[in-house]
């Protein structure tokens, strides 16, 4: 009946046997903003694609109108991997930023270190919803502007910050998602930001009232 003895072909490089700790960073962006490109440029493996099937029971009450006629919703996402040390491995998830996918956030990405919002200045509107939801969930994030060669007009970071109504404390950086070193700098900007926040939190020592 089942002849599953054949060797599983795999293109993945296995992790070190000492790998202990898996970490997550989420790249959010609108369609075509370059999420997959960014994941690919920094990942040590060819980006993989997988999907989660959500039943309606797992859907946030404020979003149910989106799926009222369905019992299940499927969301697909890409991911890549970076081995940070022998024991630590970072997974990067490219998440669709469209409104209809955001009810999945809690389930899929709880426990993430933080997020990168990838912005295409030709479609800045796509980013508002993502930024709003991240703030709502209090997920730390940075905003990276993916510069495309065919931008009709090159906006300055200040102009973009204004257009997105982005608070001063949120880092805003330029990047070229196709370039590995640039993608790496975006991740460093995020973790630097997290580090600063974590230091400040430690210093404050007082638990924040909800």
């Amino acid at each position: 009946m089942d002849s599953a003895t054949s060797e599983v072909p795999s293109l993945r490089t296995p992790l070190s046997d000492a790998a202990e700790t898996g970490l997550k960073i989420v790249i959010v962006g609108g369609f075509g903003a370059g999420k997959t490109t960014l994941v690919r440029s920094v990942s040590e493996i060819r980006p993989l694609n997988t999907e989660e099937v959500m039943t309606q029971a797992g859907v946030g009450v404020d979003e149910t109108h989106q799926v009222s006629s369905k019992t299940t919703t499927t969301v697909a996402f890409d991911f890549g991997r970076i081995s940070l040390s022998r024991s630590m491995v970072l997974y990067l998830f490219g998440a669709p930023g469209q409104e209809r996918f955001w009810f999945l956030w809690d389930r899929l990405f709880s426990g993430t270190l933080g997020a990168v919002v990838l912005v295409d200045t030709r479609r800045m509107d796509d980013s508002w919803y993502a930024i709003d939801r991240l703030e709502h969930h209090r997920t730390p994030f940075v905003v990276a502007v993916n510069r495309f060669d065919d931008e009709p007009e090159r906006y300055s970071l200040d102009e973009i910050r204004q257009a997105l109504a982005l608070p001063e404390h949120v880092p805003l950086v330029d990047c070229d998602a196709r370039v590995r070193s640039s993608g790496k700098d975006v991740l460093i900007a995020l973790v630097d930001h997290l580090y600063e926040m974590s230091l400040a939190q430690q210093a404050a020592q007082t638990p924040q009232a909800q």
Partner: protein
Amino acid sequence: MTRKPVDTGDPDRLYMVTGGRTRTDDSFDLVTLVVTECEPTAGMQSEHVRILEMCRHPTALVEVAAEMKLPITVVRILLGDLLATGRISARHPPSTRSAASLPDTDLLKEVLHGLRNL
């Protein structure tokens, strides 16, 4: 940009794979690293065999799902079976904390160090 949907076209197949169960083991995070603890044995469900073969080296749940072309929910169920019978071990991420709290500075330092050395 092609976003190929994972082949889940046949719900009956998924039903068979999980024995009709839909409740998942939520202790498995997307990045929980799974490690095989014993060799597959005769008569074992083929999906279980496949997981045991794949996880001889630590492998994240999400990679298992991608390679097996099964939804994450289904893989959580399969991994739950294997964990319950001691055939795998699971290395969970530091904490499944709420989105509002921050990781500690030592961990972040290590992450920064790793990223800078890429």
